């Protein structure tokens, strides 16, 4: 397991994010891209129908139940590029809350505004955003306000354009890049001024707390969870308290 260096730990503590370039590469990346593109094409018509019936937004869509569709999506959850780092940040008590295998079509406006995901009273909540294809500047790239995860930070203004947020940092990057961020911090996706959809995977984790995730949640992938560590990650087994 690859633990973060002291320097990386300091950046996490101070800034609330870390970037892992080439976190997924080579055959793994090709496999991921193929699975993503294959399933997003297959699921698209159902998404369009759900837009029409008012059940889904037209500004993004997630491949439903991705773990049942391809094992690559499961393998991303404890990928060695960042798994050790996530374990360190959660005192080796990491659990997965869920995946979002997300396509964001071009649109004049970002599909979401600046926001933190959880209040500081929540157990440590971490997301990993993995770019499946290259995400160019001004194409809906992830953005974060460094240090906004700290209790002493803010308040932050309600801006109408993502680029109006003071002190933000946008993360255009190559396919396979993973951005780990503390979800107490303020983040968004930038406006997409291109005609290319943003394709990424957002993995949502938390530091384990009692009864947070039912063992039933990921029971359907139990056959892929042979190790004790993985069974705990997917809440099929409890961590020792």
């Amino acid at each position: 397991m690859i633990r973060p260096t002291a320097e990386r730990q300091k950046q996490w503590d101070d800034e609330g994010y870390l970037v892992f370039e080439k976190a997924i590469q080579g055959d793994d990346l090709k496999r991921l891209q193929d699975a993503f593109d294959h399933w997003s094409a297959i699921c698209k018509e159902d998404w369009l129908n759900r837009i029409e019936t008012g059940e889904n937004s037209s500004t993004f869509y997630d491949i439903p139940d991705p773990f049942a569709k391809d094992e690559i999506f499961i393998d991303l959850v404890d990928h060695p590029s960042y798994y050790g780092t996530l374990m360190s940040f959660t005192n080796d008590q990491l659990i997965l809350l869920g995946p979002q295998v997300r396509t964001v079509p071009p649109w004049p406006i970002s599909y979401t505004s600046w926001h933190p995901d959880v209040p500081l009273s929540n157990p440590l909540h971490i997301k990993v955003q993995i770019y499946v294809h290259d995400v160019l500047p001004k194409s809906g790239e992830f953005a974060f306000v460094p240090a906004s995860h700290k209790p002493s930070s803010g308040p932050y203004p309600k801006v109408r354009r993502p680029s109006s947020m003071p002190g933000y940092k946008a993360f255009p990057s190559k396919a396979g890049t993973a951005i780990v961020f503390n979800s107490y911090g303020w983040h968004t996706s930038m406006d997409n001024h291109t005609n290319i959809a943003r394709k990424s995977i957002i993995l949502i984790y938390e530091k384990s707390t009692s009864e947070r995730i039912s063992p039933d949640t990921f029971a359907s992938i139990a056959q892929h969870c042979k190790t004790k560590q993985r069974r705990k990650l997917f809440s099929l087994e409890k961590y020792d308290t």
Partner: protein
Amino acid sequence: MTPKIDSHGHVFTKVSREFPREVSELIPKDHEEPIEKLLIEMEHNQVDQAVLVQTGGADIRSHAYLLHCLKSHPKHFLGIGLIPQDASNITQHMDKLANNSAIVGFRLSTLGGPRDPFAQIDIREFKTFPIWKHAAEKDYVLWLYLRAIDAHLIPYLLEEFPQVRVVINHLGICPGREKFSVDQDGRPQVETPAYNPAFHTTHRLARYENVMIHLSGQYAFSKEDYPYQDLASWHRSLYEIYGTERLMWATDFPWIFNNPGYEKMSRIISELLPDLSEYEYDQIGGENARKFLRFPACHN
């Protein structure tokens, strides 16, 4: 003195030779909700003015009662007309209704663009492009209560027509296909998920200064009785996103007449946004509509 303005409601009479209209489950042939009934409610609740939105047909003849009401009460009402989907000369239709009347704009339920958000967008190919273009030329307001499938198309038109005043109806909700029904009180009902797609579409349009949004239609979306507390968070969110000066209160008369009643609807903003200042209530309750829609002075 700030006027109180009900920024969206409907009136209609029984079908007659003088006032022809289309009939539907919502407005059967012998049903009427006349202007006099609305005026009584407005007076009882210190509502000074209102917007009357055409219902019962989009052709010119079906607008006869609306035009009659606007002409009879020029200081009280402004009107919003409809445009037939198959109109051969859209601009002529719009001008015919708006010329020499208090019709200030038109309501659209579709934009006529591509269904697929990944499609290449050319707004000139939208069926409603001529409507937007003419609204820009003639300073007409566009009143949007769009289908869910149209929601993603709005900003493309807002980018092209920043001069067109746009009012997004009923909390920004864009109803899904086959989600409409009529409830036991004869009111429209729209099945809507609590985590609503509008949060990622119409609620994202606040950057466009020409857009206002209605705080109205709660009865149609709520799973609860008045005061529809399950929608309080939607109101709070719209308040935070759009700000006090971009929201407009409306009752959606007459659908609320029996349940919960006009009086209750006249104070729904204070129920769902209880922490606003008096200034903010005044803005949402009338001042924003007065300025945006250019209501005539109603107080001496």
